[in-house]
């Protein structure tokens, strides 16, 4: 019954790993790394919208190859990338979609018979494949963006969308404190795990999780007071200024030009 401890420790560990991995990849020299963060953010957003309007297998296949190439040329390990993105888009989605393959959900042309009145339909299979590929490609773009860019930069780049100040300021601060609170949390869970002898029942586990949450809440309360005092002592008067040094270069124009040409060809050949 202590597996909730391990699961939580592991998922927090993964969050740290993700950040570390992103720092490593974003320091390499690749296609995505050489682009301006604002351009990257906007183009990824537009590409995801276009992919989500896609309806056919050939269209999805082209974008599938596109994301693989993009990951490859951005120096991202293809194995780690495919495993990570497939977890939700292929495995989870695949399980959700199993019933939709059969004629009981939607009638269609029979493809594989189980019994006379229970078979996999051609339409069901096709739309399931499009569905999974669409999910895979959309997640890929986000994953490639998050890996090839320093996270702080991504959040800074969001300012071009002119969001209210309360969001951008809170967002940038939140990211930093997430890792602090995660560390407090992982220490609590590790401490609990190391003191675990024998079996504890699940109600005891729930009590522990609730008290851990309350403890994180108390700590974050103290933390926010400390942070505020630290900010005031550094001259904070209610305005939150940051220095941005984004610069659009030659590579960005090539990237924009390439994508416009790519989308134009897709549109022209009616995929």
């Amino acid at each position, binding site marked *: 019954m202590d597996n909730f401890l391990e699961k939580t420790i592991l998922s927090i560990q993964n969050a740290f790993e993700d950040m570390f991995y992103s720092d490593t990849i974003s320091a390499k020299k690749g296609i995505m790394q050489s682009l301006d963060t604002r351009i990257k953010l906007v183009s990824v957003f537009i590409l995801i919208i276009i992919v989500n309007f896609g309806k056919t297998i050939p269209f999805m296949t082209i974008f599938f190859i596109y994301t693989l190439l993009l990951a490859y040329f951005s120096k991202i390990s293809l194995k780690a990338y495919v495993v990570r993105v497939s977890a939700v888009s292929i495995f989870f989605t695949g399980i959700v979609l199993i019933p939709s393959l059969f004629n009981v959900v939607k009638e269609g042309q029979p493809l594989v018979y189980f019994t006379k009145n229970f078979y996999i339909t051609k339409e069901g299979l096709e739309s399931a494949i499009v569905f999974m590929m669409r999910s895979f490609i959309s997640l890929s773009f986000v994953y490639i963006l998050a890996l090839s860019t320093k996270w702080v930069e991504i959040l800074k780049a969001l300012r071009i969308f002119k969001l209210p100040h309360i969001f951008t300021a809170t*967002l940038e601060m939140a990211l930093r404190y997430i890792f602090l609170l995660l560390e407090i949390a992982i220490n609590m869970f590790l401490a609990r795990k190391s003191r675990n002898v024998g079996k504890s029942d699940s109600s005891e586990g729930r009590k522990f999780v609730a008290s851990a949450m309350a403890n994180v809440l108390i700590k974050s309360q103290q933390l926010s007071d400390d942070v505020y005092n630290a900010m005031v002592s550094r001259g904070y008067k209610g305005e939150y200024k940051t220095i941005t040094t984004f610069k659009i270069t030659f590579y960005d124009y090539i990237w924009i030009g390439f994508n416009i040409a790519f989308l134009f060809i897709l549109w022209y050949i009616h995929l």
Partner: protein
Amino acid sequence: MHIPEGYLSPQTCAVMGAAMVPVLTVAAKKVNKSFDKRDVPAMAIGSAFAFTIMMFNVPIPGGTTSHAIGATLLAITLGPWAASISLTIALFIQALLFGDGGILALGANSFNIAFIAPFVGYGIYKLMLSLKLNKVISSAIGGYVGINAAALATAIELGLQPLLFHTANGTPLYFPYGLNVAIPAMMFAHLTVAGIVEAVITGLVVYYLQKVEEESILYKFSYRLRGDNR
């Protein structure tokens, strides 16, 4: 609970995103009016708190685990408007940096988890308090109803997809199951398991804070935000 990318049509995502704009605009106004300088770090840390506790695995009878979203808890602590902003930011970081949920689906996800859940949960909590129930029970019931309301909204958004978006011969383009499948499936899981987990955890957190006499944390912000002088 998070809707992944590709399950909803871009049109639905646009509508849900548009629905979140007025919510967040009002929230930003309310928060700007009632928060002072001191509270920007508090909201940031509120988001970090929401993000952190969503990672906690909660053991459930039978040996598996589930998650709590803590929306009602955050709404009781920060007030529903500030909770809405904090939760949206937590979801945003999950979607953009960790790839959980989707960027297009963010509008829908934040509508369900950052708007419906904290507001319904908080409303029910206040209602239960006015019925003279104690805070632990009230917050538990608030948590239960809040997460179920969010699950219902999620199921409706998903279930509408095959009705609205399909090819000429009726093959669904996005989420393939209609309301008659999506609502029972989602609600069964949430009414029986996820809702109870949320209720137990929310109630226990409030109980624990009362026990260690740190209860004031729960109300420090929200009393001022609501204009109560306590």
